[in-house]
C-alpha cells in the first residue's frame, strides 16, 4: 500500500525538539516543515501547502493559542494539533474550542502522535472532498441554468 505522506508543519521554540521530531516524522514518511515561532509558522503556511500543524502551546512572543486563532482565521482548513509541556489541559481544551483538532501532552507517545496526525489529515481530506463535491454541484447547477 502506498502511504500518502501528511504535510506536517512542526512549530516549537525548542530547536532540539523540532530537529529530532522532524527527523522522526520524515523517517516515518511524512513531509515535514518546521518553524520556531508563531510568526514563522504563519509565514510557512502562506508559502507552502500544509495538512496538519503540530503546535507547541507555550512559546515566547505569540503563543500557541494566538497562533492557532490566526491559523484558523487565515487557513481554516488546516488542522492543528496542540502540544503542551504544560499540565494545563485547560489551555489545550480551550484550544480545541477554538478549532484545534486535538492535543498531546509532552513527552508524547509517538504512536499516539502518528494516530492523531493521521486522523487530522483524514478530517482535512474529507472536508476538502465535501467542498469539491459542493463546488461540482454548484458548477453543474450553473451550467444547467444556461
Amino acid at each position, binding site marked *: 500500500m502506498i502511504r500518502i505522506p501528511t504535510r506536517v508543519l512542526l512549530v516549537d521554540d525548542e530547536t532540539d525538539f523540532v530537529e529530532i521530531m522532524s527527523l522522526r516524522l520524515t523517517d516515518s514518511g511524512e513531509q515535514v516543515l518546521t518553524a520556531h515561532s508563531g510568526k514563522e509558522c504563519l509565514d510557512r503556511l502562506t508559502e507552502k501547502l500544509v495538512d496538519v500543524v503540530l503546535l507547541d502551546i507555550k512559546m515566547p512572543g505569540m503563543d500557541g493559542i494566538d497562533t492557532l486563532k490566526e491559523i484558523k482565521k487565515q487557513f481554516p482548513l488546516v488542522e492543528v494539533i496542540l502540544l503542551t509541556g504544560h499540565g494545563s489541559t*485547560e489551555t489545550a481544551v480551550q484550544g480545541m474550542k477554538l478549532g484545534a483538532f486535538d492535543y498531546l501532552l509532552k*513527552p508524547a507517545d509517538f504512536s499516539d502522535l502518528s494516530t492523531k496526525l493521521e486522523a487530522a489529515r483524514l478530517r482535512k481530506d474529507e472536508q476538502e472532498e465535501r467542498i469539491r463535491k459542493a463546488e461540482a454541484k454548484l458548477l453543474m447547477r450553473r451550467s444547467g441554468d444556461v
Partner: protein
Amino acid sequence: MEPIRLLLVDDELYFIEAIAKRLKKRGMEALLATSGAAGLDILEKQPVDVVVSDVKMPGMSGLDLLGRIRERFPKIETILLTGHASPQDGVDGIKAGAFDYLTKPVEIDHLESKIIQAHDKIQREKDKLREAELREAMERQIIANKRLASLGTLAAGIAHEINNPLAIINEAAGWMRQILGKSREGGIERKADIEKALEKIETAVDRARRITHQLLGVVRETPLSLSEIDLSEFIADIIRLVEKETAVKHIRIATNLPDHLKIFWSDPFQLRQVLLNLLTNAVHASEENAVVTVQVQEEGQQILFRISDTGGGIPKEHQEKIFEPFFTTKPPGKGTGLGLFIVRGIVQRLQGNIRLESGIGKGACFSVSIPNRRDG
C-alpha cells in the same frame, strides 16, 4: 460538672472524718490521710484535684507536704488549715504556692466554697491548656498547608520545565529506534546492546513522565463537575478497580454504608480518585487474608468516608510528612510519593478535609469528609 476529687490530711483523724462527713452531705467525697507521708502515698495512687491539709502535723508538716505536692503534682491545688494563733503559716503557705489558707476552727461553708474555687481554678487552667494546644495544632496545620501549597507550586513548575527536555530525550531515543528498526541485518554493530540501552532510556522517560504528569495534574485547577452519585454503585465500582490486587493477597473489602443515604452529590471523578488512592494504599499496607473496611456515614451536610486497614500502621514521625509530594516508603520506581499529595489536593478542591489516625501496629484509618453539594 465532674465531681471534685478531694484529699483531707490531718493527724487528728476524728477531725477530718467529721469534715468529710459534712462535705459528703453537700455531695463531696473525700479521701483521708493522717500524715503527710500517707497523703503523698494516696496521691501517687489516685488522681486528686484538691488537697486540704493541716499545717501543724508531727513529722512532715503541712508546709513540707505542700512543697512536695508542688514538686510532684503541680496541677493539684492545696488549701492549708492553720491554727488560730499562727496566721503566718498561712501566709508562708500562699507564698509557697498554696491556693489559700483557712484558720481553724473551720467554717464548713467557707471550706466548701474555697474547695470549689480551687477546683474552678484547676478547670480554668485545663481549659487554657486545651485552648493553647488547639491553637498550636491549628497553627501547625496552617503552616503545613502553606508548605504543601508552595511545594506544590514549585513541583509543578519544575515538572513543566522538565517535560520539554524529557520530550527531546524521548524523541531522540525513538529516532534511534526507528534507525535500528530499518537497519539491515548486521548493518549496525552491537545492535542488541544499543537496543537494551534504548529500552532503559524509554523506561526511565516513562517513569519521569508519569511523575511530571501527575504533579501537573495536582495543581491543575480542574473545575468541579458535580453530579448525582449512587453511593453503593459508586463504592462497588471503586472496589472493582482494586479487585486484581485484593485477589492476589486474598484481602476482603468490607463495606459499611448508611441505609438511608442512597444518593449524594459531588464530583464523581475526583472523589473516585481520592477513594481509589486511599483504598489502594490500604490494600498495599495489608497482610494476606486481611480485611480492609470502607465505611460511609452521613453527618449533617457532610459525608464521611473512612477507609481503614489492619496493616503495620504509620509511625508518628511519618504522619506529618505523608501528604508531602515525593514522600514514600516504597522502593524507587514503585511509588512516586504523589498519591496522598494528590488526594489532599483534590479533597481541598472538594472543600472537604482529610484526617489520619494511625500508630505502629494499629493499622491506619483515613477519614475524608466532603460536603454533600446538592446546591451545585
